[in-house]
């Protein structure tokens, strides 16, 4: 009858519609869920790469040197691709296939960055002359042929900016290289042609008196008693006094009355003059003195440097700080986050990374076999905060097909433990109880008492060494328990969320003196390559 036939027609209409709708919704669900899963996998792979770099560099004595660092980075990149191909193995992707989807990997270091991306290997320039062609022997058996696509590290790019101008002291043309904290390098000519090369940290509130007393924020900084640490020499574990100079630790071997440095478990004798420095550790005092000298230099020659002096065509787009860049007289000090110097430093670093990275990712279109338009995504402010915080890896993954869309994502993972930089929260405070056990706390833990000395947190990490039989052993350079209140969990932290560490310490003695001394001592001992200018010619 009428109604049954109507019902049958209704079913015939509705059933296909609902089936199509169901499969469409399933498809959308699948796409979006794949996207968030890929985000997770990218995070995991980047974290693995970072961990590999961390472990390699902490366990090597030569990790400061550029060759060693580049090797560590290449190992880290290898780890990244290994983890990626494991995570995506169900889709049949191998390492070579994944490389087509990763336009660039950025390793941001202390004063510059590396980009790992493909490039073309050329033996000579575009239109070589006959001589040039003849000068390269015919390489039928060469490792890499002319015009071959290779993956590798591009040259190191510094976070630097060039300034020109003139003031009452003459004209100047300098390049200032910035870093992740307030260390700068100034190279160029000032005073109408005098060549200079200056290094140091920018600090406000440093005072050096004529009788060689150093004050920072009103607190006197003294030289320290010898620091001791455990080290393996020739297979034997010893506890020796040491000083760290330019990244190398010099130990006093009291058994043989010599000063040594240790490379891969073997001791080599160094100059006996260093013994005086070990016994009377002046690193902290020298740190503040160097900052004072740099402040005097800048006030004399570059005092009114501003963004108008930058030598760059697009400077108004990227550099927007107004006023003096080196504002030592800022009410919170030049080290604070809101000072002109800090804002400008972040602008320089951002511009340096973004410019080269967008070029590298654009160029990737030439190399990848995948037909996607690769573009650099816009990094958010929270991302830049993470990058500025410490050494980090930025990874990009673009072009993989997920259902209806093409995946385009990135991941930023920051390294907390490395020997390149001493951040404000890398200094732990040691306290000892009545039984002689040491505990280490964050400086911001509430109600600290019996504070002894400040320690760099890398020295608490486990290191490996070999004993006399050639067995691998583990040891801790500095041994103690990590506080359960501030390090294992952050339960009793006294600092408020809008306070800086300087404000927190402003009325806490002797904690402030211990902290600032340790910070100065550790920062002064780091490896920093320096160019010495001989002006006597």
């Amino acid at each position: 009858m009428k109604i049954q036939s109507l019902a049958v027609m209704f079913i015939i209409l509705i059933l296909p519609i609902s089936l199509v709708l169901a499969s469409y919704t399933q498809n959308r669900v699948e796409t979006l869920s794949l996207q968030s899963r890929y985000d997770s996998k990218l995070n995991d792979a980047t974290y693995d790469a970072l961990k590999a770099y961390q472990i390699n560099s902490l366990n090597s004595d030569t990790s400061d040197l550029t060759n060693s660092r580049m090797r560590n980075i290449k190992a880290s990149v290898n780890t990244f691709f290994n983890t990626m191909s494991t995570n995506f193995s169900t889709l049949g992707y191998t390492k070579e296939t994944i490389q087509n989807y990763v336009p660039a990997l950025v390793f941001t270091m202390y004063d510059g960055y590396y980009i790992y991306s493909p490039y073309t290997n050329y033996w000579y320039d575009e239109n070589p002359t006959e001589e040039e062609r003849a000068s390269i022997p015919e390489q039928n058996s060469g490792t890499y042929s002319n015009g071959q696509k290779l993956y590798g590290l591009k040259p190191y790019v510094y976070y630097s900016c060039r300034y020109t101008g003139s003031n009452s002291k003459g004209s100047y043309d300098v390049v200032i290289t910035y870093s992740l904290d307030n260390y700068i390098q100034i190279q160029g000519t000032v005073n109408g042609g005098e060549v200079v090369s200056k290094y140091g940290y920018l600090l406000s509130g440093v005072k050096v008196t004529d009788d060689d007393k150093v004050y920072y924020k009103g607190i006197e900084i003294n030289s320290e008693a010898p620091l001791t640490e455990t080290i393996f020499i020739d297979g034997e574990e010893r506890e020796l006094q040491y000083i760290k100079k330019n990244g190398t630790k010099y130990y006093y071997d009291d058994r043989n009355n010599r000063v040594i440095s240790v490379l891969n478990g073997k001791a080599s004798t160094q100059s006996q003059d260093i013994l005086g420095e070990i016994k009377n550790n002046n690193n902290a005092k020298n740190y503040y003195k160097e900052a004072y000298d740099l402040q005097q230099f800048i006030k004399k020659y570059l005092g009114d440097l501003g963004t108008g002096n930058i030598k760059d065509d697009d400077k108004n787009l990227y550099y927007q700080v107004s006023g003096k860049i080196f504002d030592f007289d800022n009410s919170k000090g030049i080290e604070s986050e809101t000072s002109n110097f800090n804002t400008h430093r972040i602008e320089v670093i951002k511009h340096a990374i973004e410019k080269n990275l967008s070029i590298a990712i654009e160029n990737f279109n030439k190399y990848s076999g995948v037909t996607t338009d690769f573009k650099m995504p816009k990094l958010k402010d929270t991302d830049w905060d993470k990058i500025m915080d410490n050494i980090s890896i930025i990874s990009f993954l673009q072009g993989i097909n997920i259902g209806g869309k093409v995946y385009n994502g990135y991941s930023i993972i920051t390294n907390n433990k490395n020997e390149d930089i001493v951040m404000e929260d890398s200094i732990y405070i040691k306290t000892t109880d009545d039984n002689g056990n040491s505990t280490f706390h964050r400086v911001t833990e509430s109600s600290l008492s019996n504070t002894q000395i400040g320690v760099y947190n890398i020295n608490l990490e486990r290191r490996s060494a070999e004993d006399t039989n050639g067995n691998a052993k583990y040891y801790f350079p500095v041994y103690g328990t990590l506080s359960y209140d501030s390090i294992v969990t952050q339960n009793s932290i006294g600092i408020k969320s809008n306070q800086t560490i300087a404000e927190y310490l402003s009325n806490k003695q002797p904690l402030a003196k211990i902290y600032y001394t340790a910070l100065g001592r550790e920062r002064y001992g780091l490896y920093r390559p320096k160019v010495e200018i001989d002006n006597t010619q």
Partner: protein
Amino acid sequence: MSDTLITVIAIGLAAILMFVFPLMTMSDRTDDVSQLTVETATTEFVDEIRTTGKITPDKYSKFIENIGSTGNTYNVEMEVKVLDENPGKKTTQTTKDTIGENVYYSVYTSQIEEKLYNDETYKLKEGDIVSVSVKNTNQTLAQQLKNFFYTVVGNDTYTIAASHGGIVTATGK
């Protein structure tokens, strides 16, 4: 007489077909979309905790709002396994074969929420493990309609669930 009976049955059949059947289909789709929303929100929430190292009350309430916007009520369970490296240090200078001495102790939802409700951030450090799982507690429309035909009973019945976890890669400050 039998004519009227057939008419009544026919009208009943028509009602079921015209109203209940599309309604069931649509509410199934709604459930699918809710499932996707909850899964995405959970994954994003956990990944953000892993990369920043802290759980802020702001992010947590946004997460609850997000999953609540699907129209259902959910039960959120969070677990943080805090890494304690001190036991691994107590055995001094051991051979390289000893691994796995570090201890993880767990902190659960109510302890974390206590801190969050005081408007403080819960900070984690690198090496901790965090996991979040969400299950729905009400009966969705699709479930209610299906109950006409068959009933699913039990304490732990849920139709929408998501969970995600991982290792924390940054220390919160």
